[in-house]
């Protein structure tokens, strides 16, 4: 038996689970079409759509997805008001 462990679990520790490996489709954001509204972020069950910190030509701070975790549900693409996200088949 190892030394007594902490029975409580680590906040944010599940970030070790790279759930991106689950997906069949992955989202591709057309940065130029993105209006930076954040809908994708709001509807993402993983919470991994985020502002990259760069602006496109139209001056919008565009979004992207953290593909380490994206499970490919397609909610971002479905709900995007300007349809700037496309779900593509992931070759493995």
């Amino acid at each position, binding site marked *: 038996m190892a030394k007594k462990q902490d029975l409580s679990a680590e906040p*944010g520790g599940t970030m070790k689970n790279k759930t991106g490996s689950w997906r069949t489709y992955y989202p591709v954001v057309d940065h130029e079409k993105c209006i930076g509204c954040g809908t994708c972020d709001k509807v993402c*069950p993983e919470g*991994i759509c985020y502002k990259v910190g760069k602006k496109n030509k139209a001056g919008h701070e565009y979004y992207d997805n953290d*593909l*380490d975790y994206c499970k490919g549900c397609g909610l971002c693409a479905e709900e995007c008001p300007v349809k700037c996200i496309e779900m593509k088949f992931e070759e493995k």
Partner: protein
Amino acid sequence: MQRNNTNSKNKYLLSEGHTACAGCGELLAARHVAEAAGPNTIILNSTGCLEVTTSQYPNSSWRLPWMHSLFENSSAVASGVAAALKYKKQDKNINVIAQAGDGGTFDIGMGLISGLWERKDNVLVVCYDNEAYMNTGVQASGATSHGASTTTSPAGKAIPGNMLFKKDMPAIAIAHDLSYVAQTTCGHIADIEKKVKKALTMPGAKYLQILCGCTPGWNYDTKLTVKLGKLAQQSGLYPVFEAEYGEITTALKVPKKKVSVEEFLKPQKRFKHLFKDEKGKDLIKQLQVRADKNIEKYNLATE
């Protein structure tokens, strides 16, 4: 295709890496509940999908103090936490949320929730209602929609799915004379956050029920989680409203152009048997009657 992945710096209070299904409505709603409540919040979570997918020892998705005890007692544990905070004189600056699925709320946990409501303990009770016991494999609960096929109310030749009607949990909450009772769906993300924030300003016990699509349990295309929440509201089947001390204070109107219950039912394979024969069509009509009654009861029609 180029996949220039960089890592998100979102740092939500419910972090990524949880093991819920793709497109999970419950996790989507839960993240917004946590964000709206903020870091000065203690969450007590019942057993269920939300618990197992976010707290696999030794890791957790939660970045706020969070505890799971049992299936039925998140409310009573929350009452104890609220009492402890009151004793420590920290009850004014720390929120307490007890959250459970519909099984933990409508069925096995209902007595304990009623106790909390009766005592008016300073706790927000949140129910993520996906209308069945999803964690154990889609068995019918007191929240299951009439006509839905589940593994314990399967649609068969003799019986077309669940023959019982959904329990009106918000009405039971209102009967406890709560300061705040509200209902919304995961098709109304901003509304979830608004209602959590509002609830946490109200005294004593509060109740928020959120309809959450379950992709395997309702059996629909994962991208429709938000749409189905909207359709549930628009059809009148799932009114989005707030009530303070028993008075309805806000209710989201349904669109002028009628959205039939069929539009909500059709994309979900749990209702597919209803579209096959006359018996099913009769049942859909009954659901439409209930939706129309809701529209009347909550005054949801647009002038």
